[in-house]
């Protein structure tokens, strides 16, 4: 017995060492590209293109960031990066608020209120998640052109105020975990549906709404195809399309500046993640498991 115990611990030890080695190697593979991006963003132009590459910049040129920020300012008369950033922030704000407000309300109807046709409507809602965006691209463009919205941010944020299948689904699942007795009690006390929703359900749903807000921010900050379709002038570009225009520019933007600009686009998302890690992780887990 003693002997088998010993081999078991040895086996365990070996397993722990192997697992740790695998984790460390994989971590490196996952992190190196990001470290590389930051490292290059601090290099001198020629060092950024050196082969073999240097891992750590000879000198940390923090000035690259302000240079990237003001890139092309002389030609345009304004700092494009600041303008893209402002557009992205405005768009994110309008989209996140619209998404949270509309989906919170709509999901309440699907989760807690009985009305004729509700279940059919909900099944239809889920089915629409399979409709690929390229099918809708042309008619939506036509619609927004008709409205005179092409070239503005409106085609990108107005639809967010009308609810979206995925968020409705997510919030509905959450609302349904709130005990019905709470609503019934309020209903007996003569509370209106709006009162039940705003005073009983909403305060309890804050964690789920935070998740919806986070995903919506991420999705908007990252979105490329939407802005590519509707925004035509540099001054209305968001960071995603602006950055792409830097990269595809004739002659090319110097690499170290491109990496500095990329880092500035990535950083807000990563910072946000570190402050909201728990909601983030739980939110993602919920999308995959509660289905």
């Amino acid at each position, binding site marked *: 017995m003693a002997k088998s115990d010993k081999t078991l611990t040895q086996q365990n030890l070996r397993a722990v060492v192997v*697992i740790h080695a695998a984790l460390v190697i994989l971590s490196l593979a996952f992190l190196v590209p990001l470290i590389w991006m930051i490292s290059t963003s601090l290099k001198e132009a020629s060092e950024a293109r050196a082969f073999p590459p240097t891992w750590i910049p000879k000198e940390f040129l923090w000035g690259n960031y302000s240079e990237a920020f003001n890139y092309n300012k002389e030609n345009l008369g304004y700092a494009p990066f600041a303008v893209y950033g402002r557009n992205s922030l405005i768009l994110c704000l309008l989209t996140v608020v619209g998404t949270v407000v509309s989906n919170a309300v709509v999901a309440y109807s699907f989760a807690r209120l009985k009305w004729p046709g509700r279940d059919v409507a909900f099944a239809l809602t889920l089915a629409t998640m399979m409709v690929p965006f390229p099918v809708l691209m042309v008619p939506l463009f036509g619609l927004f052109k008709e409205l005179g919205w092409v070239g503005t941010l409106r085609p990108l944020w107005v639809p967010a105020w009308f609810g979206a299948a995925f968020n409705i689904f997510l919030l509905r699942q959450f609302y349904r975990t709130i005990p019905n007795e709470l609503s019934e009690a309020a209903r007996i006390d003569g509370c209106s549906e709006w009162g039940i929703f705003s005073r009983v359900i909403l305060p309890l749903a804050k964690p789920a709404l935070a998740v919806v807000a986070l995903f919506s921010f991420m999705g908007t900050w990252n979105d490329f195809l939407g802005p590519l379709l509707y925004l035509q002038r540099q001054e209305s570009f968001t960071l995603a399309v602006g950055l792409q225009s830097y990269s595809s520019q004739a002659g090319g933007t110097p690499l170290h500046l491109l990496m500095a600009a990329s880092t500035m686009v990535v950083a807000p998302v990563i910072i946000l993640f570190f402050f909201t890690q728990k909601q983030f992780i739980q939110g993602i887990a919920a999308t995959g498991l509660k289905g």
Partner: protein
Amino acid sequence: MAKMGQSERRQALAGVLFAMPYLIGFSVFLAIPLLTSLYNSFTEYSVLREPVWIGVRNYADVFKDELFYKSLGNTLFFAAFSIPLSTIMAIALAMLLNTKVRGQAFYRTFFFLPSLVPAVPMAILWLYLFNGDFGIVNAVLKIPYGALGLEPPNWLSSVDHAKNVLITMSVWTVGNAMIIYLAGLQEIPQQLYEASDLDGASPWQKTKNVTIPLLSPVIMFNVLMGIIGSLQYFTQAYVLFPGGAPARSTYMYSMYIYDTAFRDLRMGYASALGWVMFVIILTLTFTAFRFFDKKVHYEG
């Protein structure tokens, strides 16, 4: 319908009112555009002129269109490799994390960080990493290739390798799936592993007979989402390989639809291409669902 009492009627009214924003949005931004696009697919239509009905000609043309086959082939190739590889990577990472080694939270964050990187900066970074002249990938690969007396490939300009760049990127961004799998693993009752330990099962047998079957609903969900997503794959390919360079080897189906509609202004034909995509997605999703449904182990 049974006659409703007053309170039911009030609830039904409230229900419709609460759902109203979505019912409007659904019609205006989804149902009507979807039907419009179906109609347009049977027309010749450039935004400049009104659509002209031409019957099924667009669809007949799609099936004779070389670029359709090329872009669909590229997209399916990408999906066929990126979905299985990402699935394996995500499950492997989740299983490693689930061993509850010290520092689990740190490793989890490390693996997750790449998934936070927005598509455009990610593609730009990839352009640089895989650069044949000064990219870090070849700086590392030079060692094994050099030992064999070979040169590492020029990833971005080689017809054979460009797609691999996109597949690698998708394997690098498996963070979301990994989190979902990890949560799935944590729900597997520990007793099942203890029981198989008593039966003297090897780690591989435990993975095959306990972990994978119990994880199968989650795998199904992720694979179905993977199919829907990769058929529409656009941004990374568009930024990394403008025009599907080299030699259209990275030209994706969505890029073709986009170019047809907004560069060539052939909106009718683009709509037909879109509907063919929709049908392909439905077929693949349905087939995958049937395939999984026989195998998936549902708890309780």
